[in-house]
């Protein structure tokens, strides 16, 4: 049997639904006349499992899993790692330093652009954005050591 995309997706939703049911164990379901905080989450989690199973059963109509194009995976992974680093550093280094580093990392590491142009573009755009937010829109942005 060929592994199809909907086999994987459906299985993921079934696992997710089961996880939600497991995490809802200590939430009271209540009664129909007084539904508790676990009432609707358990119903929706069960429906997720049912729909996930329906997806698995109809997986024949989906493309084979091996046919999925993961060519953009490297791009996605690099952008994710760089963005995660920027989020981690944002409240420590502040807006200006973090965002200049973010943009330069994306332009140099992901896009392989000219370093001088990347540096000038990053600095100009970040400073312009800082002026817009901090002065024009009166929305203060995190400073270094925030």
């Amino acid at each position, binding site marked *: 049997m060929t592994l199809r995309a909907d086999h994987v997706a459906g299985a993921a939703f079934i696992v997710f639904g089961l996880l939600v049911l497991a995490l809802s164990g200590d939430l009271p379901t209540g009664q129909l006349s007084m539904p508790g905080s676990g009432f609707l989450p358990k119903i929706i*989690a069960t429906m997720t499992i049912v729909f996930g199973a329906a997806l698995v059963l109809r997986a024949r109509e989906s493309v084979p899993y091996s046919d999925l194009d993961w060519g953009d995976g490297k791009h996605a992974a690099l952008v994710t790692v760089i963005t995660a680093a920027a989020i981690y550093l944002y409240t420590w280094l502040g807006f200006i330093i973090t965002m200049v580093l973010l943009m330069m990392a994306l332009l140099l590491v992901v896009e392989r652009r000219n370093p001088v142009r990347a540096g000038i573009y990053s600095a100009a755009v970040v400073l312009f954005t800082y002026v817009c937010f901090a002065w024009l829109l009166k929305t203060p942005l995190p400073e270094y050591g925030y």
Partner: protein
Amino acid sequence: MEDTLISLMHGFGIAFQLDNLWYAFLGCLVGTLVGVLPGIGPLSGISILLPVTFGLSATQAVIMLAGIYYGSQYGGSTTSILMRIPGEASSVMTCIDGNAMAKKGRAGAALCIAAVGSWVAGTFGVIMLTMVAPPLATIALKFGPPEYTALLILGLIFLAYMSSTSLVRTLLMACIGLLLGMVGIDNMTGHFRYSFDFAELGDGIGIVPVAVGLFGLGEILSTPSHKVVGEVITPKFRELLPNRLEWLQSIMPIARGSVLGFIIGIIPGSAHIISSFLSYALEKKVSKHPEEFGHGAVAGVAGPESANNSASTGAFVPMLALGIPTGPITAVLMGALMVHGVNPGPQLVTEHPDVFWGFVASMYVGNLMLLALNLPLVGLFVTVLRIPYAYLYPLIIMFCIVGVYEVSHSVVDVWIMLIMGLLGYGLRKFAFDPAPLVLGLVIAPLFEQSLRQSLIMSNGDYLIFFSRPISLGLLIVCGILLALSTLTFILKRKDWREKLAEAEAGEIEL
């Protein structure tokens, strides 16, 4: 009727205040840019700029954000016509005949017809909004928890039915959105749900990090810069006006598109991008020269562009009159109003008339601004289109981080945005549309509250939903839609939704 006109005049008085005019202009300009730039849709544009509106009044905020929404409908046609790349989802059909007209040297005429059609349809939509919303709000005052529960279920079922992906996939996304919407404190019992001891999750997962992550970051993760290429056709300013024949050919498509779009737009849960597909199919069916479609038919531009603008205006009717979002964009707009302490719904017209009528009047003004912006500034938009995507998306990521953080100064929100971005990337890979997820997230609190209140009212008797006429009527419509979907599944025949999906993918001709 007289009261409506008096209230509308009051609304114009508010809309013409200098600061409100400025925010309407800003919204329209940003909206047009958002529509022009591929990769950024109105949803991510509104989500990213939502925190910026926190310092504004409710009226100013909704005027600006709504301007982004309907402005993006205008801007989307520019990229579609000049580059054959849809600037946003509802401009897909304009790519076909709009770009064909451009290749024949009629780019200016196509842009003008799209802009004028959008203006006529947008104005028609606002007039209908003015006439329909207040009486609908009066009827909606009769809605109780059972009616709201049934209406929300109808919205989800209708979204699933109208979606070009399968019913099961759409309902799955809605379920995930509903589950995400139940994270945090349960309003009725005070229990913490799925917060994993994070205090920030006690208030639940916000719509901004989810929307920005799914649609902004998710799109960027799926789009390496080498995939975004396109030749830009630059129209000459003096060739912007259509000739007499082109004007005549566009009149009836604009009229039909306006009506069709508004009807699609007001239905809760309907994905209004369907309006442009349906309009294209309709125009091809009624045309005396259907063979021209795909090769530069004026009706192929005029109809869909009018339909998507009218639909975007019609979408405000349930949002304002009933407090029901018709889709993720109106869901975010509702979120914006709630942040400002204004609850959309039947009481909006009576309790916040300045907000309601100021907003409605500003849409008349905004549509005129957009007509003035789109044609003379087409050269500017062509320049913007020439910015390499490699330099554009780092800027967008920066705005995503800043925008999400500024909502509540919480890094947890930004991490949620990143996780949602990865989820959005994965969903696209497996052909899931993330839009129903956002709708589920927004309606989850209202849905759960109305459902539980209904059961408490009836002492646990679920027949309450069938014993009240409005609720019963709504559930009968749900049943009909589910039956139609099941029939298609059993007969294993392609219905009109799958044909539209294939047409969108370029696999068949409508």
